[in-house]
Each structure stands twice: as structure tokens, then as C-alpha cells.
């Protein structure tokens, strides 16, 4: 079964568009080895997209990792797996995962998260910063390596 690469963000809001940019790039490179979905939806709406997949990579922008803008941070589900943590939207990913577990939905067994630290997601129509734009050079090979590993059992980092 194909894995899903779920790219979150908003391309009208400068650096917040990094996930969408990554989706465009991956779409052309992957040659059908994975489903790539770009969306500005969030919270419980993501449930509709995730259900039915076994393996998922999520790409999103964050703004508080403590690393400089453009840093790519690889997160395990365990890093987020705490329902107490607040989310800026209806319900965060950790809450969603626990909800899916409790509801016994057909939820992915493996979720890998790549987060890119960003600078300013509050200016409409702003250009993406150079640092964040450059992060694709690190981000894309990481994602491709995972897909390769999952699909072919080979790993070329």
C-alpha cells in the first residue's frame, strides 16, 4: 500500500507555504510511489485524510522549536503524544491520534513528522524567506529516503 505524504500550510502566508512548496516538488519527484496531499485544513478535518493509510509523513511549519528559521526538525509521534498539549486549532495532531485510537479507526500505524521552523506566518502575500525556502534542500532528501525505505527497503540518506 502506498504511503501518504500530508503537506500542511498556507501559500498565501509567506513561510507558512513551505509544506505546499514541498508537496509540489515531491509530486514531480515521486513518480507515484506515494500519495501527496497538500492542504490548508487542520484539526479534525485531517482525520478524513489520514484514515485508511498505514504509513504517513506529515510536513508542517512550526514557529517555536528554538532552532533558527529554515531548520528541519524530525519528530516522532511520541514527541507529540500528549493530549494535554494545546493546539492553535480545533484539535491538535496528538489529540487526533488518541481520538482515532479510542474510536478504533483505521489509523496509520506509522507517522513520521518533518517540521520546518519558520519566521513570519502573519503577513499576507509575503515572499518566503530565503532560509525557509532553502530548507527544501534538506527536507526533500529526508522525505525521499523514508519513502524509499518504506517502499523498497533501501535507504539512501
Amino acid at each position, binding site marked *: 500500500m502506498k504511503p501518504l505524504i500530508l503537506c*500542511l*500550510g*498556507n501559500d*498565501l*502566508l509567506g513561510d*507558512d507555504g513551505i509544506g505546499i512548496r514541498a508537496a509540489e516538488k515531491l509530486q514531480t519527484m515521486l513518480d507515484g510511489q506515494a500519495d501527496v496531499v*497538500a*492542504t*490548508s*485544513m*487542520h*484539526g*479534525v*478535518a*485531517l*482525520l*478524513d485524510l489520514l484514515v485508511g493509510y498505514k504509513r504517513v509523513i*506529515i510536513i*508542517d*511549519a*512550526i*514557529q*517555536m*522549536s528554538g532552532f533558527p528559521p529554515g531548520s528541519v526538525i524530525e*519528530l516522532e509521534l511520541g*514527541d*507529540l*503524544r*500528549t*493530549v*494535554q*498539549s*494545546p*493546539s*492553535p*486549532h*480545533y*484539535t*491538535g*495532531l*496528538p*489529540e*487526533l491520534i*488518541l*481520538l482515532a485510537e*479510542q*474510536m478504533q*479507526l483505521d489509523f496509520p500505524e506509522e507517522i513520521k*513528522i518533518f*517540521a520546518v521552523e519558520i519566521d513570519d*506566518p*502573519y*503577513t*499576507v*502575500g*509575503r515572499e518566503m524567506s530565503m532560509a525557509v525556502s532553502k530548507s527544501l534542500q534538506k527536507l526533500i532528501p529526508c522525505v525521499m529516503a523514508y519513502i524509499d525505505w518504506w517502499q523498497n527497503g533501501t535507504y539512501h540518506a
Partner: protein
Amino acid sequence: MSDRIVIDPITRLEGHGKIDIILNDSGGVDRAYLQVPELRGFERFAQGRPAEDMPQITSRICGVCPTAHHMAGTKALDDLYKVDPPPAARKIRELVYNIFYVEDHALHFFYLAGPDFVVGPKAPKAERNILGVLGKVGQEIGLKVIGTRRQLRELMTMIMGKAIHPVFGLPGGISKPIAKEDQQKIIDAADVAVEFAQFSLKIFNDVVLSNPKYMEYITSDIYTHKTYYMGMVDQNNKVNFYDGPIRVVDPDGKELCKFPHGKYLDHVAEHVEPWSYMRFSYLKDIGWNGFNDGPGSGIFAVAPLARLNASDGMATPLAQEAYEQFYKACGGKPVHFTLANSWARLIEMLYSAERMKELAHDPEIVNPKVHNIPTEKPVEGVGIVEAPRGTLIHHYQTDEKGLITKANLIVATQNNSARIALSVDKAARGLIKNGQVDDGILNMVEMAFRAYDPCHGCATHALPGQMPLSVRVFDSQHNLLKDIRRR
């Protein structure tokens, strides 16, 4: 010496925000502020773009209520080109809009308000979430919530189109009619929606209204403000979300004014404060008189409670029954209790579902004539809808080719912002005594604004998962005294 407490970011609020609470020497509250980040650059971004792109652009900016922006933008285009949609297009727009309402109001109840009312405001933080709600009401209900939401989303995709950013609303109509064979799906989903709304109201009745403690919270003075109320009404002064004049009532419930969309600037003005990016809407008819309530202050409210207060009732039978029960239980009209918004929201959800059902059965909705071609030269257009979070105003000016020269949006949360500021301040003052601040008290301060379902949504993120709520206490010199992280 005064201490400063910061709640940042606010749990379960849509969009980012934080609360600053400044304590006085005796450990009471000197002042509490809600701070939100500002979305910048919209006007400049819009300039020079074709007006027809605005329903798409504005709905992409906001990931929380894209359908409301899409609809306000589309109606502004009708006004800009002075063209009315054919009856089928008008009805289909209203149908989609009511489907969106059922889904959006349901989410608020089960995910945002539910933890406060079903689980309890002082329950351990780890339980105050959707899982805690399901723990109380049962897993089957969880599946029902998820299933109904999904069915409604699929219906919206069927009607509006599957693209990520659908081109649905056009000046003078919509982009595609409803196929005859799809009407039955809409009828079936409408039945599910009505039943779902009734069942959500029943949960509220069983869990909240029968609990004297919760009713004490709802009717408590710390969550009460006597302000003006604004909402859209139909020709019979009944609540409407899609179209109709805007009506404002005073704190005694008497009509202050009722105006068509193009006249909004005669009634709504904006006040600016140095401590906030947010602009505070107030009524020009009364004037800005500081952060006070009462008939002498131009502060008004929008959103469910305000809409019910500003109307003479609901246009559908079951919702009307719930409306009457609401005012009877709350001791007459208008209701000034902020937390009653959660109840009002469920009454509105029932109305949306019933209206969806009426429109689903209307033979007109499968009429293929859904677009009137505009012929007038564009100059200026205003479009207003009731977003779930309150009155939403889009105002465009263009050159003769229809390229935007000026765009002004007044979003629902901005219309509510002055009253939200009052609510946060009053709740903090009422709840924090002798410098004692615990998790339950902070949550009850947050409840004061969560009831409005405020949306400061802009950037869209599912992450970070681990961002804790931090409560920081500063002395008057802004030295950090304590740093409490709520994990």
C-alpha cells in the same frame, strides 16, 4: 509591585493568542488583556487583483471559516456588478451555507465547549478535551460526531466542487447546478443533520441544564455584560445567516437600528488601543465610551447569543421551540450571559439543519439556470453574511476593469473584540483573589472568551503538539518571578 501572569497560547482557541493578567499589590487583578497576533498586508495584497478572485483569496487566508469568507466575497461581487443570482443559485448558496453551519457549530460544541460543560470547568486538565467528552457521553456518540461531520463535508464537496480552493461563487450566481440525481443525497443528509442537532441539544439539556452548578456558572455575574447585540434578520426579523438587513438591539432588547449592507459604515466604527493589534468595533450611533457595558457604551456583541437577542425568533419550528425554551429558562430577553452562547449555538445548529432540509426538498435547487451574466461596470460592492462567529463584512472598490483598488474586511471576531476584552477582564477580576491562580481558575478565565468561539485563525498548523501553556509571573519591573508550564 504588580505581578504579571501570561496565558500563552490559549488552549482550544482557534488561532493563536495569549492572555496577560496583571496583578496589583493585594494579589487581585489590576487589568487582564487578551492579545492576538495581527494578520498584516491583506489590503496591499488585494490591490490590483481581479475582484472575482476575492472569494477564493479570502477563503484561503482563513483555514477556520473559509466558507463564510467565500460567501461574503461572492455577495460583495453581486453588489459590485449589480447583478442578482437566479433563484436556484441563491437557494444553493444558502443551502451550502447552512450545511457549513451545522458542521461548524457541531465542532465547537463537541471539541471546544464540550470539555468545559460536559467534562466540567474544574476537571483535571488532562480530561478537558474531546476524549474527556467522549468518556462522559460514550464512544458511540463519538463515532456519530465523526460520521455526521464527514457526511456533511462530502456533501459540500459534491455541491461546491472537489478542488482544494473551489470556484463556486460567481458574481450573479454559482459555477454549477445540482444534478437531479444528487438531490436525494442532500435530503438524506438533511434528515441526519436535523436528528444530530436535536440529539446535541438533548445532550446539552441532560448534562448541562440539569446540573445546578453549571447553570450557576452560566448565569454568574462574572460572565455577564449588558451590551448592544447585532445580527442578520429576514423580513420577519427572524435569524438568517445568508441574507437580510443587519439589526441592532439595545441592552433592553429594543431595536436601535436596522440597516442594509451598503450602510454599514454609518453604524460600525473602529477603535484602536495601544496594547492590542486588534481593532475594536463599536456602534457609531452611540459612540466609543471606553471598556464599559450599558446603554451609554457603543460596545456590541455578535455571534450566536447576539443573533438570537437581535432577532424576534427562528424561522423553523423546532428551532423556534428551542428559542422559546432558552429565553424562558434564562429569565427573559435579551440574555446577557456570555456562556449562554454555547446553548444559543446549538439552537442555531438546529435551525441550520431544518433550513437545510427545507432547501433540500425545494424543487428549485435542481434548476440548471444558476448564473446571470453581469453587464454593469463595477465600482463598489459590500457583502455581509453571518459567519458562525458573527457578522462578517467584505467591502471592495475597483477600477472600471474590476481590479481591486481598495478592500476592507471586518471579521466577526473584530466585531466581538471589545466585548471579549470586557469578558476577559471581568472574569479575571472575579476569579483571581489573593494572588491565587491555579489551573482550574485559568481555565475559567479562558471560558470567558472561548464562549464567543473567537477566531484569530491565520496560519494553519497541526503542530506543535508539545507546546505547553505557559503561565509566567512578572514583577512590576518585568523580572520573571515564576514560570509555570502546564503540560
